[in-house]
């Protein structure tokens, strides 16, 4: 039977297009518009050309924030991905304990960002927080409000605590989809535990792991609330990540032009990395079949 071609259904997506234009496209265009202008308040704007982009590119502040941001994303990926896979490999495969683990693992994912931030802010305090107090009692010099290393360890551990479950759950889903026949074949060949992981489990998990890495990278690259609640970007600028710096510039100092230029470059980097990940993911899927 020949299908009739009718493109009129496309009109049904019009309301969504209008909504997206109103909530995303036009605001993005406004940012581009602000990035080439200067304002002294009173809604009066003056043409500035590419001045703000130049200023941002020459600004040590932005490069430092970018460096810290890349370091943060790199560290949490290096910890969360292997740890998540390790947890997934050791989770019970079926029965009551499997469901129990799944629920337990989902719990941190359900907590809102600012609540996680508050939990760790209090948890780490030397005077009333369990972690801070214990470390202090053990004689370890830990104070995340004054010591850079302590502040970094706190926000990294907090992120690991919050998001490793996501990687673990995705990896677990990938593991569950491997048919038993693969394991049986490996057993017949007397493959070692490592070889089973390297040649069966890891390739089969690759697709979901890429999604996990992409999600974690994007989320951590745009992270704001959690480190802001815990350290406020301090001590000094030690934990001022990109979005914290951006908000300081845009809302704290009300430098709309530089902040707009900054956020556009931030957006381009995210767009580039998402595209690379997406392309790699699609091609992995195609190769698998």
């Amino acid at each position, binding site marked *: 039977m020949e299908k009739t071609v009718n493109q009129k259904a496309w009109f049904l997506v019009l309301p969504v297009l209008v909504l997206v234009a109103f909530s995303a496209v036009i605001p993005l*265009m*406004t940012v*581009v*518009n*602000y990035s*080439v*202008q200067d*304002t002294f308040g009173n*809604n009066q*704007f003056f*043409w500035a050309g*590419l001045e703000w*982009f*130049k200023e941002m*590119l*020459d600004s040590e502040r932005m490069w430092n924030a970018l460096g810290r941001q890349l370091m943060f994303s790199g560290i949490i990926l290096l910890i969360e991905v292997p740890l998540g896979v390790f947890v997934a490999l050791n989770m019970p495969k079926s029965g009551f304990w499997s469901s129990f683990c799944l629920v337990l693992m989902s719990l941190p994912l359900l907590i809102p960002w600012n609540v996680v931030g508050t939990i760790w802010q209090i948890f780490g305090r030397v005077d009333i927080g369990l972690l801070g107090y214990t470390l202090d009692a053990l004689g370890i010099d830990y104070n995340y409000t004054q010591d850079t290393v302590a502040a970094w360890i706190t926000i990294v551990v907090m992120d690991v605590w919050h998001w490793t479950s996501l990687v673990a759950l995705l990896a677990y889903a990938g593991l569950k989809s491997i048919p038993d026949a693969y394991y049986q074949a490996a057993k017949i060949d007397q493959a070692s535990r490592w070889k089973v992981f390297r040649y069966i489990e890891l390739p089969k998990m690759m697709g979901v792991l890429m999604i996990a890495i992409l999600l974690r990278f994007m989320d951590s690259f745009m992270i704001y609330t959690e480190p802001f609640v815990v350290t406020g970007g301090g001590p000094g600028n030690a934990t001022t990540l990109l979005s914290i710096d951006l908000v300081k510039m845009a809302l704290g100092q009300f430098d709309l032009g530089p902040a707009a230029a900054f956020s556009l*470059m931030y957006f*381009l980097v995210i*767009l*580039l990395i998402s*595209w690379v990940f997406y*392309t790699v993911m*699609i*091609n992995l899927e*195609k190769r698998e079949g």
Partner: protein
Amino acid sequence: MDWMAWTWPTAIFFMVIASLLIIFTVLAIKFPETPRMGILRIDTTRGDRLFITLLGSAFINIAWLGLVGTNQPYAMIVCLIYAAAVFRWV
């Protein structure tokens, strides 16, 4: 629309992007194509190549601004060469 402080350069910038999108949509409907594999070893259609061109051009312009700093319009020449290369080989 005065309160949004739109400027002509921004308007032209978006008009160019919008018309590129419209042209490529029309092209895709009138002359359907199959994806091909280029030097990046990924399947690309005309639309993908347009995306790679636009994104790359943004980075070329920023790099020009950061490294050269003057004569920004010349960056557009680099972008055009880059675009031609993308459409030919990617």
